[in-house]
């Protein structure tokens, strides 16, 4: 089955990103296709590569990146929500005249249309948030 996942909260403050990760991993292990994981609202904060949690805690950002690599996942960060919250890829940073970019490996920045499209293409869309 084709499943889309929407993550509306950032890492660490709220369990939403952990739940979404565990759900996504379980779905992949059961042989389902995860069509896309879309990060919206504060969920875009799951994509900053500057995240550095204590060594004895889980690394939420890297965990997503690794899962994306292992399963060729499409991790999409909403551009409008990302711009509000200071998440940028190299192109966007250049376009906005910023001196740095911070998006982690495996994530890409794109438009909200990608969320609607996931809703159209997927058999199910599951939302995680606060």
């Amino acid at each position, binding site marked *: 089955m084709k499943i889309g996942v929407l993550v509306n909260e950032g890492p660490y403050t709220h369990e939403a990103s952990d739940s979404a990760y565990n759900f996504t991993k379980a779905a992949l292990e059961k042989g389902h296709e995860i069509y896309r994981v879309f990060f*919206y*609202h504060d969920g875009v904060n799951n994509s900053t590569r500057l995240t550095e949690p204590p060594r004895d805690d889980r690394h939420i950002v890297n965990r997503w990146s690794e899962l994306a690599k292992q399963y060729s996942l499409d991790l999409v960060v909403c551009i*409008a929500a990302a711009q509000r919250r200071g998440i940028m890829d190299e192109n966007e940073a250049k376009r906005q005249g910023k001196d740095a970019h911070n998006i982690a490996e495996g994530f890409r920045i794109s438009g909200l*249309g990608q969320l*609607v*499209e996931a*809703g159209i*293409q997927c058999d199910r869309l599951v*939302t995680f*948030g606060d």
Partner: protein
Amino acid sequence: MSDEMDMEEGGVVKQFMFVNRKAPYGTIYALEGLEVVLISAAFEQDVSMAFIDDGVYELKKGQDTKELGQKNFSPTYRALEGYDIEKLYVERESMEARGLTEDDLLVDVVVMDRAELAAKMAEQDVLISF
């Protein structure tokens, strides 16, 4: 506003319901939720919005954010009609519990009691909640 609009997805039309349960300004969910709804209009889907619990407050007339320094986005609900998003469902129980009547709302809505709205929700293909 974007110059590349009217994206059709191979003629698939799904029923999308955006479920609004949060008050405006206290959190960003109402505003960013509305941004998704506006984008969804470009995909030619069967889109509706449900206003439940504090989501009803999003539609309250007379919002004035001048002293807040936030943008008053309530007039944007009145633009939805021009986007062909005309199915705005308000749950009667939520509205009445908050001491509001239809006259307090800034757009025309369909007021539904909980059983009607529950049935409407159950028949959706995609529910996205904020």
